[in-house]
């Protein structure tokens, strides 16, 4: 009986996922607010059901631990549903699509983590929930303090100092020295400096957009990236570089900057490669070689990526079913390689739908960026959109062998305190910008109505 339920759940989850993904894109087409609201409520039902069926499967599989799983499930769904409904009551101008997607991604992460390692899932849930409470004041702060755009240089300096902390109290993890240890907690500063960096560029470009200003920004960005390269966090450096060049392009509207930076970037990489080949690039070369032919050393350097491909391929389109695969064989399957774990058990179709959901988040962010008229918020929203999508692309592209693996996480889904907190900060800032934008739009609409009203009155008189 249990196995029938688990098998049927597998396919029902896939159908629900398809419906959820579809709604993520059709929601932009909703004609009226009523229809939009109905669609958003339906999304919550899909999320609820996917999550319920997943935990049902997990509980049936692990009868000894069933009490813990049920309690954990209950707490999660309470927090998520509360969040999805309450957040909109507190911030009526916030984006419900973003709130739904955020909860959905977190819940998928919890589910997979529960399957992989119950204690990690609990840890992730506690960190994420505490973070949710903490970051919920961000939209309020942004709405209240409109002068955030003034502190451009300060963001840059704080960012550089925070990144440099690694040289003072740094610890090494996974071959990169990009973590610091504070009071027994390890934090990855670059996750947070990323946000300051977006603030920095948006703020600088909102003041001036001349050549001099662009040079100043380039100087600061260069220092950021140089520190990351010295920490051997090349994935991080690449994310900073991409955020930097695209924000400059959007902020100034000049395509020649973009082309110049790409050319310059390529030349810098070549130069650095020639100069510091052995000191900085040995672990990059290993990763590139592994990417080109992981089969040459299946049990050594190629182990992680070949296990990942075995997982994705063996699971097939429909997946092995939750608890039926062996994603725990892949090293760091809870973090960098969570996509492969999801693909193996939920199926490649589900995993691809997940990628589309992430892409719809990106479209939401871009949508906000295009609607908001203030330059500072526009450039910033765009910066976060790029940051989010590029990181997701690096992570999923890396574990599927589309590009060399860079060891980055999928925001909100992968395990990791720093990653989850910084992603939540990012999503909350987007909610803040959405609030500002919606309020502004409403104000303009009111002004228009008032003028119409006045005109009608004048005509009658």
């Amino acid at each position, binding site marked *: 009986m249990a196995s029938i339920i688990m*098998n049927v759940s597998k396919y029902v989850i896939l159908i629900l996922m398809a419906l959820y993904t579809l709604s993520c894109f059709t929601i932009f087409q909703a004609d009226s607010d009523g229809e939009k609201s109905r669609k958003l409520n339906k999304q919550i039902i899909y999320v609820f059901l996917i999550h319920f069926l997943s935990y049902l499967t997990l509980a049936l599989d692990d009868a000894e631990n069933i009490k813990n799983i049920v309690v954990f499930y209950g707490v999660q769904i309470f927090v998520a549903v509360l969040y999805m409904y309450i957040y909109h009551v507190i911030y009526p101008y916030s984006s419900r699509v973003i709130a739904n997607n955020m909860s959905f991604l977190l819940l998928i992460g919890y589910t997979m983590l529960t399957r992989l390692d119950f204690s990690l899932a609990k840890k992730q849930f506690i960190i994420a929930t505490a973070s949710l409470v903490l970051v919920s004041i961000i939209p309020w702060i942004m709405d209240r303090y409109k002068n955030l755009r003034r502190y451009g240089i300060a963001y840059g300096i704080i960012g550089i100092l925070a990144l440099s902390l690694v040289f003072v109290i740094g610890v090494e993890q996974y071959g990169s020295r990009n973590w610091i240890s504070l009071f027994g907690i390890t934090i990855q500063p670059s996750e947070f400096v990323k946000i300051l960096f977006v603030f920095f560029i948006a703020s600088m470009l909102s003041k001036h957009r001349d050549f001099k200003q662009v040079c100043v920004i380039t100087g600061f960005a260069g220092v950021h990236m140089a520190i990351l390269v010295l920490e051997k966090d090349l994935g991080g450096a690449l994310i900073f570089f991409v955020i930097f060049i695209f924000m400059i392009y*959007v902020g100034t*509207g000049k395509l020649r900057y973009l082309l110049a930076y790409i050319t310059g970037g390529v030349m810098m990489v070549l130069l650095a490669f020639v100069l510091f080949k052995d000191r900085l690039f040995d672990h990059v070369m290993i990763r590139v070689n592994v990417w080109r032919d992981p*089969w040459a050393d299946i049990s050594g350097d190629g182990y992680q990526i070949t296990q990942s491909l075995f997982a994705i391929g*063996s699971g097939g389109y429909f997946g092995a079913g939750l608890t*039926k695969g062996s994603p725990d064989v892949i090293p760091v399957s809870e973090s960098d390689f969570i996509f492969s774990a999801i693909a193996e058990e939920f199926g490649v179709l589900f995993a691809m739908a997940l990628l589309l959901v992430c892409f719809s988040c990106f479209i939401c962010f871009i949508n906000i960026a295009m609607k908001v008229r203030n330059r500072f918020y526009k450039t910033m929203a765009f910066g976060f959109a790029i940051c989010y999508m590029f990181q997701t692309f690096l992570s999923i592209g890396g574990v599927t062998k589309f590009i060399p693996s860079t060891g980055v996480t999928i925001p909100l889904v992968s395990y990791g305190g720093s990653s989850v907190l910084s992603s939540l900060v990012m999503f909350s800032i987007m909610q803040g910008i959405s609030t500002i934008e919606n309020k502004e739009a409403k104000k303009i609409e009111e002004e228009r109505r008032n003028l*119409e009203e006045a*005109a009608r009155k004048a005509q009658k008189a």
Partner: protein
Amino acid sequence: MKKREETSKKPQEKRRRRKKDEQQLTPEQQAFLEREEKIEKINEKLNRPVLGITYLFAFLIIGLMGYILHFMIVEKDQVIANAANSRLDKYAANVNRGDIMTSDGKVVATNKGDNRYYPYDNLFAHAVGYSEYSKAGIELIGTYYLSDSNANVFEKFVNTLREEKNEGDTVVATLDYDLQKTAYDALGNADGAVVVMEPDTGKILAMVSKPDFNPNDIDAVWEEANREGSESSVLLNRASQGLYPPGSTFKVLTTLSYMRQNPIEYKRYSYDCSLQESIFNGVSVHCYNHKTHGEQDLSSALANSCNQAYADIGTQLDVEAWRDTLEEFLFNKSLPYTDASATSRFYLEGDTDKGYIPQTAFGQGDTLISPLHNAMIMATIANGGLMMKPYMIDSVENYKGARIKKFSPSSYATLMTAREVEILTSYLQKVTEEGTAADYFDSADYRVAGKTGTAEYANGAHDYSWFVGFSSVEHPEVVVSVLVEQSDVNGVKATAVARQVLDAYYQ
């Protein structure tokens, strides 16, 4: 992408509304609209690069999704069929392992109760292998297909509901029952190996290795083979994993190397084999049984397998170029074969002691080759110079016989010119018509091109007997490679085994 429609829809609506009201606008309204339109225009301009980058990212994501689909459709099967994929066994838990069938429909591996059952006992021991322990043969390379089920979807669904296992797919081998049986019987009690393959496809029609074992008793066999201090090599597939000195069969490639290095002069090659022994590079060389062959050109040297002539040729070869030719033919390289195979070895380099050259030229020395590799070299000649990758799984069917997948032949590389093929074929034909194999084939009603070989080992105490060849000469359709260990003791001659196999093929 829908977003763009939306953003472009809104200003249009606004404009329409504006037009309608235009006649009755107050100056305040006019000013408001003008201001809004100006801001909107600026905003649209600011949004243009945002839109461009959004398309760029959409393109990246579409590329990634396309890649994942490509992986699933094209690469997946090959990737996960890898023996290093520990997941296959876990997945097999829901499937009754499928059958293995020969190309002529004989079931050679199936299930009997909870056990794997091999109806023909020892006959297919190495080719089909076993599914327990580390697995081997088709049971290993086909394990992904055997433990997958492509039964009717509805039936699978019902089975899942009933918590019953699904029926695994059937792997259809390229093996031919009659040829396998003939080769197996012809080898008799002798140790050795037989490989029969199609030169134009690479299909392996028969693969025998002895000593063999009964895969139905794999528990006992495995225990015995892995007992500490055990010297049993019954589990070793000599056809693909056994390495032997090639003996005189190596003269084929020595001839080719000589032809390549002396493209015109080779026709006029001559050697007078009138002494029982001669000295080359300081080493004494004699022919088999101390025979003398008299005046030899290149074709008669090959036909008579004249060691002295080949020792002489060896002294004339440029060793580096010789090595290059051999490495083209996959010496010192892994064979393009899905199952486990040994790498054949050729030791000579430019600075190796010249004293090793004469014996290496006629196939003694430290050169080693597997029977499969030797078959592939013959098949390359038979196939006009194009080497095909050998394979043993022809297709996959579901348990009811509906075809799921067909493996098509694939080529490795073109290794010889048409001219080289033509000349070598005529030389090899002479071997079976007037040379060392003539006695075995004079009554055959098909024409054979081939080469015999005898390699001494254990300091000349024992002989390996070789035959490699193909038939027919006009339309090559089958290649045979036979190796017999200790043929001086058991009296089994490789050429005689080959004759029986070829007779069976043409029956």
